[in-house]
């Protein structure tokens, strides 16, 4: 008999929602969180735009998290351990978690595990930035922590590499706090972040956006003194002769998020290379019975509202029993990724929620879902872009042995 029906690893938005859903269904639930407060990355997301879908309000990230934190704190069925870090998980008929905290080494047993441990940022050296190693080069999350949690400015003349949402948000944030953002550089030929962020973070502040350009190397010994940017072709290769030196004291690197799945890998849970998270069924259960994956460690989301939704799906399921599943593979074509990748045929709802990203920008796109070649669902999209994740509800009730295929077509936009 395990200590808890569901142990949630991670107390950010995904973990909070999953824990509430599990506990609401009667599951004895524990949240293990390594920081000293709940909220995860939302603690430092003071900008708004969160909760438009879920609450119909434009909340800041910390407010969004607070709503769930308040419920978790009030819930008699949820225990929270802060400043607690999982160092090992062993699987038998239950899961045995070893964790460290100021209390010592603890062993916790769980019937079900929900991984909600988020993602990490891609580093400067993972995008081949060379030169010296001065202070002043940091990922956007680090800058965000310094500005929004510690009240300090990491620099005054900033170059931002990467037009993903975090980079754009920080461009505005740094400008508001008195820094000068010289420009946002994006290696791709189209911006990565949400269009409205390009408008309200760059256009509003006259911050130029340079596409098809990247940072090649940095200069400066103690503190950054300059960066060298250069143009790249569509294969991301440097174009000789296009180098330009830009004097600055800060380089903010915002070049993508990588789901954290060290714990999942330690349990040999197969990961989908397209999402870099585990393969899951429509209940967010991985290929390992009783182990769920939610939030950014499953795949990098754009909207926290969808994080909460899928986390709740997992939480509800984790309150149930761990019956052996009949899993059906979903074939996919035309996607960067599609989640879930599998269907648990014994627990299908009338409609299944899918999330996907198109492999390339498309116009006049069509999503077709076929079962044994027959179209069972079709939806048209005016515009699809890889940085903008889509949510779709599909009625699906295939039988064992049938072939289910998701097919995304549409004119590629160059």
């Amino acid at each position, binding site marked *: 008999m395990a200590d808890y029906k569901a142990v949630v690893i991670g107390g950010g938005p995904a973990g909070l929602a999953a824990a509430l859903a599990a506990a609401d269904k009667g599951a004895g639930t524990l949240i293990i969180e390594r920081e000293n407060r709940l909220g995860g990355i939302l603690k430092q997301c003071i900008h708004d735009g969160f909760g438009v879908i879920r609450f119909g309000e434009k909340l800041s990230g910390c407010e969004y998290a607070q709503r769930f934190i308040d419920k978790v704190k009030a819930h008699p069925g949820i225990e929270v351990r802060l400043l607690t*870090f999982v160092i090992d998980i062993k699987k038998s008929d239950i899961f045995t978690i070893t964790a*460290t905290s100021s209390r010592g*080494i603890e062993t916790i047993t769980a019937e079900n595990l929900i991984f909600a441990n988020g993602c990490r940022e891609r580093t400067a050296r993972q995008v081949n930035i060379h030169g010296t190693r001065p202070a002043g080069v940091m990922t956007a999350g*680090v800058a965000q*922590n310094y500005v929004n*949690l510690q009240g300090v400015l990491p620099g005054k003349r900033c170059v931002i590499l990467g037009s993903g949402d975090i980079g754009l948000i920080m461009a505005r944030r740094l400008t508001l706090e*008195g820094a000068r953002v010289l420009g946002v550089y994006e290696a791709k030929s189209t911006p990565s972040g949400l269009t409205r962020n390009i408008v309200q973070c760059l256009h509003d502040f006259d911050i130029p956006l340079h596409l098809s350009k990247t940072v090649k190397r940095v200069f400066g010994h103690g503190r950054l003194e300059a960066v060298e940017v250069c143009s790249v072709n569509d294969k991301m290769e440097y174009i000789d002769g296009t180098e330009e030196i830009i004097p600055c004291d800060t380089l903010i690197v915002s070049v993508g998020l990588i789901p954290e799945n060290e714990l999942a890998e330690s349990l040999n849970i197969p990961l989908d290379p397209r999402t870099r998270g585990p393969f899951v069924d429509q209940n967010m259960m991985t290929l390992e019975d009783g182990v769920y994956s939610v939030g950014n460690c499953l795949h990098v989301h754009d909207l926290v509202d969808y994080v909460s939704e899928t986390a709740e799906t997992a939480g509800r399921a984790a309150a149930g029993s761990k019956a052996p599943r009949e899993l059906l593979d979903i074939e996919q074509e035309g996607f960067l990724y599609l989640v879930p990748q599998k269907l648990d045929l014994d627990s299908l709802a009338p409609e299944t929620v899918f999330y996907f990203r198109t492999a390339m920008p498309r116009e006049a796109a069509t999503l077709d879902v076929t079962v044994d070649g027959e179209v069972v669902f079709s939806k048209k999209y005016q515009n699809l872009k890889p940085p903008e994740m889509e949510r779709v509800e599909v009625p699906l009730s295939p039988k064992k042995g049938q072939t289910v295929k998701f097919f995304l077509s549409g004119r590629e936009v160059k």
Partner: protein
Amino acid sequence: MPDIKKIQKILKKNGFGNITVSEMLGGVRLTGELSSYEDILECGRLAVDKKNSRGVINDIKLTGFTPKPMRVPPVNDLAYDGRRPDVLIVGGGIVGSAIARELSKYDISVMLCEKEYDLAVAQSSRNDGMIHAGIDLKPNSIKVKYNMRGNKLYNTLSKELDVPISKVGQYVLFTSPWQKLVYPFVVARARKNDIPIRYVKQKELDAKVPGLKFRHGGMFFAGAGIVCPYLMTVALAECAVKNGAEVCLNTAVLDIEREGDRIVSVTTNRGRIYPKVVVNAAGIFSDVIAEKAGDRHFTIHPRKGVEAILDKKAAGITDSVLGRFALKTSTGKQHTKGGGIVRTIDGNILVGPNAIETPEREDDSTTCESLNEVLHKQQGLTSELKRSDIITYFAGTRAATYEEEFIVEKSPYVKNFVQAAGIQSPGITAAPAIAEDITAFCVQILSEGRKVEPKKNFDPYRKGITRVKELPPEERDALIKKNPDYGIIICRCEEVSKGEILDAIRAPIPATTIDAIKRRVRAGMGRCQGGFCSPIITRLIAEECGKSLLEVCKKGPGSELNVAYTKEVDYGGL
């Protein structure tokens, strides 16, 4: 004495007739001007005469080029003004630190001054951490003498200083069928220095190294090992400090004053010091210190090397050390081993280095091209080496003399000057042995003035910072119950606790910057490269050291991480 005319002839024959050759301090000095750095290097190599000359002093100017001045910390005070130690060691790398410990075995007052913000900032933290078998070294060289002695000293040192080592051995792969024929000659060479060697069949190699591309067998050298070179440096110095030595960081030697044939004082940015003996362990600047002291009979031509570190997930590539057999290296004709693949003592895979001559002593920048070169070369060894596993890369500059040899000597010209100069690879291995000889020289010199006695209460032991991650659960639990900070994990990639970070900040030689803490306890060395822990560690440093957040640095002064408080800067406007 060097044959100046002969060297002049050699230079002229090679097209460098306009270079002036003269004798200086028993060495050969080259002066003039050339427009190619490669040519300057070539002149230096041509002027080498190990038998008759003390060294090549290459003062040929490179047209239109002035090297950057030595970086000096922006600290200026009189903290050490008027101090009178028996011995002043210049340089806080592994060699200087090993010397400090050896000297502290005697009733000798020792000061070590290091211009950087921490020990082991230059070569000593920028190498592959190998304890070398010695096979790549010329059998009668100074290098091999110290390498073999040092290698033997490492087991004891590891236990006494609480720094783990592992004698993992080294595989050297034959890259073509005919190389096997040279094996008997390598055995003969190995015998000269008692280097254990055995032949390895391809089957054994395939079992050891997945994806191995060479199919011609190889050799195994059981005497090779691995250590964390910067942890060893710190450990040596901390033991010295425990036994009375003083380590002065951010202290740069600006000048050395002589009277006749003796040094009387050393001017630093932190005051003037009056040592009885000066030891030169200044690595990449050892010829600059030699010049200030009055016995510069050699020149350092810096040779940069780039290395890449791979995620621990790639550790399956090898569990020891892999390299190619290179005939040129074995016969001493080439002074670089060509690099290889090492699984470090911490479990990362380290790839490289390459070797690029550069006139800039402190250029530790990497370039795209040099990383590609390193990767490409080592990918030739195994198909398992993937660029996508790289988590970071770095560079360092080797302190290479033209003789490509160590200088471990008492100066014949300056009576109280001792040199451990031009120490490049195998410096990590050789350091403990070099330290013994340098100490003997210092004791000799000091004994001229008074009786020098070994310390009765010398304590050879030193305890390092506990790695809580490596403790068995019960031990870890007990430690946390005594000190709860060991239970709180700050760096999650490397599982480093708050307690360990505080230990580093509070250490006998304090680590109070992000990079210094990183080297001591590995916080920030994982796959996220400090993305999560660095803001937290910044706050810890500020709290622990009573500094403001704006004073916390990445490395030395001048590398502050944050420039202002947000509410004290004016918004520039829309």
